């Protein structure tokens, strides 16, 4: 009986969704949607892991590549964007002690991302539209291979996600700079300068230092949001471009795809796309590490001034590193390969290394610390990036790229270790930390399950990346299929590690459902009884 009671009401019936404010409910909805799509991405990942060992008879190769197209987009937009945007729409007002500029706009962001992700996922699932996330021209407009209608829905879904993203950007900047009703007028310009890191730089040259009006984590959120905005603009523009070709095809008009220069397009698109992997992710993660380190220890961040400047450097670096994705493009100018592809990219080793050192030193200064869930997942996140960033720097080298580009090395030790260990474990750390705050003190159902989640995520993520990397060093390509079992040893081992990831997620999901109960999950989606814009109940 106790099991069913807990399943319905949550652990000890502590979680009462009726007590939640509008802000708490909005944030928790983001988390639920994000975890829902994370589950999608994990299942898709496992299907591909199995397929790489032995093609599944009921899944055609077209379906396989459609899954491969949707998988990273569901993971990044549907899952990560939802969790990160939800957390930041809560944290910026929380850290600035002022209400969110617009809860309504926040909810629009949520539903546009949730709906847009479902639309592009469904169009890929039903029509097998599969140009991959890279969309190398003219593949997305190659209607001899792909359905025009499927592509139209796919691109529309992505466009909706980007619209929700733009609403997030507006909400964040408005929240930082606006003056709430009844407040003394806020210094808009000074707040913006502090948030964008300009004050940190100009303070270097001033004898009388200006006060920072926003905290370091808020500055990190604001600066990462600059890349979010640029990325959304580039993807939206590219989407419109592809849609023009699609709409023309629907009306029977064939626009010559050669009207667009494939290399120029590749540069343009990678410039925008790279603002995610080499921009906002690194900046947001560094900011989250700083926030978690100070919250866990209760101490001031070590080298805070340097950390502020490093964030701005990372932002500028993120605008100039795209060419490392084009080191194997022989028509790409050599100076771009050397300067943007190699030298500027190497700065990421420095900026991310600084964030790593500063976070560890802050934690170290507060010894002894209790090994709580937020702390252990934070350490996992730090380890993930410590492994993944150097792997990326190695492939961003003209010599090594010749034998690493598009191999499993890129997607294994670099991308999947960064995402599944570095990013995901940082996000889990934040979720475990914020859970009692957002739920008014809900008690975690099982610490044993939380421990299992930690080890399954860590060993599964590092192991899967390692075995994919070994296959890559033996010549196995990404974005391809090997149907004769050429790399089966590595793929089976990577599949075992992938199973750990799946089990870890299921343990976490079950633990959370048992913590808040099914009534609690449903209650999150019911309107709040409180009309207030307060973050937490008084």
């Amino acid at each position, binding site marked *: 009986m106790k099991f069913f009671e807990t399943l319905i009401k949550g652990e000890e019936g502590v979680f009462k969704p009726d007590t939640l404010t509008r802000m708490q409910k909005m944030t928790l909805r983001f988390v639920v949607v994000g975890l829902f799509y994370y589950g999608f991405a994990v299942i898709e990942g496992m299907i591909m892991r199995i397929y790489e060992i032995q093609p599944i008879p009921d899944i055609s190769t*077209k379906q*396989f590549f459609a899954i491969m197209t949707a998988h990273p987009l569901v993971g990044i937009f549907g899952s990560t964007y939802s969790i990160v945007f939800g957390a930041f729409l809560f944290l910026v007002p929380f850290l600035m002690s002022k209400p969110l500029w617009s809860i309504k706009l926040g909810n629009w962001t949520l539903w546009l991302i949730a709906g847009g992700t479902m639309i592009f996922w469904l169009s890929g699932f039903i029509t097998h539209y599969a*140009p*991959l996330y890279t969309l*190398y*021209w*003219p*593949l997305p407009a*190659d209607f001899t*291979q792909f359905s025009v209608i499927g592509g139209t829905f796919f691109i529309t879904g992505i466009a909706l996600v980007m619209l929700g993203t733009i609403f997030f950007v507006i909400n964040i900047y408005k929240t930082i700079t606006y003056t709430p009703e009844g407040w003394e007028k806020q210094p808009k310009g000074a707040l913006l300068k502090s948030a964008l890191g300009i004050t940190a730089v100009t303070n270097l040259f001033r004898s009388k230092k200006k006060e920072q009006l926003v905290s370091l984590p808020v500055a990190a959120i604001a600066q990462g949001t600059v890349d979010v905005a640029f990325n959304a603009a580039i993807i939206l523009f590219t989407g419109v471009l592809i849609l023009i070709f699609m709409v023309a095809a629907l009306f029977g008009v064939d626009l010559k795809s*050669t009207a667009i220069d*494939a*290399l120029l397009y*590749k540069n343009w698109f990678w410039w925008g796309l790279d603002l995610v992997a080499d921009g906002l992710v690194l900046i947001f993660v560094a900011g989250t590490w700083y926030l978690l380190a100070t919250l866990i220890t209760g101490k001031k961040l*070590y*080298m805070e001034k*340097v950390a502020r400047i490093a964030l701005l450097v990372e932002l500028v670096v993120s605008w100039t590193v795209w060419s490392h994705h084009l080191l*194997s*493009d*022989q*028509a790409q100018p050599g100076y771009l390969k050397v300067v943007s592809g*190699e*030298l500027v990219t*190497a700065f990421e*080793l*420095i900026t991310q*290394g*600084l964030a790593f*050192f500063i976070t*560890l*030193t802050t934690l*170290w*200064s507060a*010894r*002894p*610390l*209790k*090994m709580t869930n937020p*702390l252990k997942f934070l*350490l996992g996140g730090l*380890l993930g990036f*410590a*492994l993944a960033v*150097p*792997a990326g720097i*190695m492939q961003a*080298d*003209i*010599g*090594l790229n*010749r*034998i690493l*580009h*598009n191999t499993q090395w890129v997607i294994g030790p670099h991308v999947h270790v960064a995402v599944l260990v570095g990013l995901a474990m940082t996000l889990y750390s934040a979720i475990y930390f914020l859970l009692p705050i957002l739920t008014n003190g809900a008690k975690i159902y099982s610490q044993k399950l939380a421990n299992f989640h930690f080890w399954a995520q860590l060993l599964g993520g590092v192991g899967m990346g390692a075995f994919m990397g070994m296959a890559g*060093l033996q*010549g196995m390509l990404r*974005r*391809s299929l*090997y149907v004769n079992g*050429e790399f089966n040893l590595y793929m089976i081992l990577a599949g075992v590690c992938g199973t750990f990831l799946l089990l870890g997620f299921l343990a976490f999901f079950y633990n959370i459902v048992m913590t808040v109960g099914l009534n609690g999950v449903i209650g999150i989606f019911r309107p709040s009884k409180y009309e207030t814009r307060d973050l937490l109940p008084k």
Partner: protein
Amino acid sequence: MVDSSAVLQGQTLAYTLYSLAILLLMGWFGFKITRQGKEKKSKDGLFYAFVTMLVILGVSLHIVTYNTIPWAEMDLNRAGIKADKVFEITVEKHQFFLPSEKLIVKCNEKVLFNVTSKDLTYGFGLFRKDNSMLFQMQVVPGHKNDLLWQFDKPGVYSIRSTEYSGPEGYNMVVRDAVEVKCTE
């Protein structure tokens, strides 16, 4: 020219050692952080030494590889190097069209592979019998895609597209398309 497999072995060793070191460091840190320690102010000197080390590492990696990986310099300067042999290869509708059934290369010849795409973005890579990669490049439509390579030992290589070009792309393999012959 040093074979690319030797470069990969060096990289594997370096990254494996680094990974083990960082795993041990984080394990040690995780253990020590829960123990009582003497709380003293962090040494800023250590911080700046760490920053200096990162800068040296970031810059030296490319200097070292440029001077030790033989194809790096040749690739950047290939416009000024005269090739001993040129192979004009075309790709269209997920198929490679080679100038002859088998491309024969003599040892130590500088060979230019000039690959033109008539439709999509593809990849062009040479792979050994054990499926390991010798080299690859992207093949972008409307642009010159050329790669200069010097073979120093005999072997037979397959050509494979290394870039996704649609669900049919993974079948783009020409087995044993290139043969390198060496005479004593």
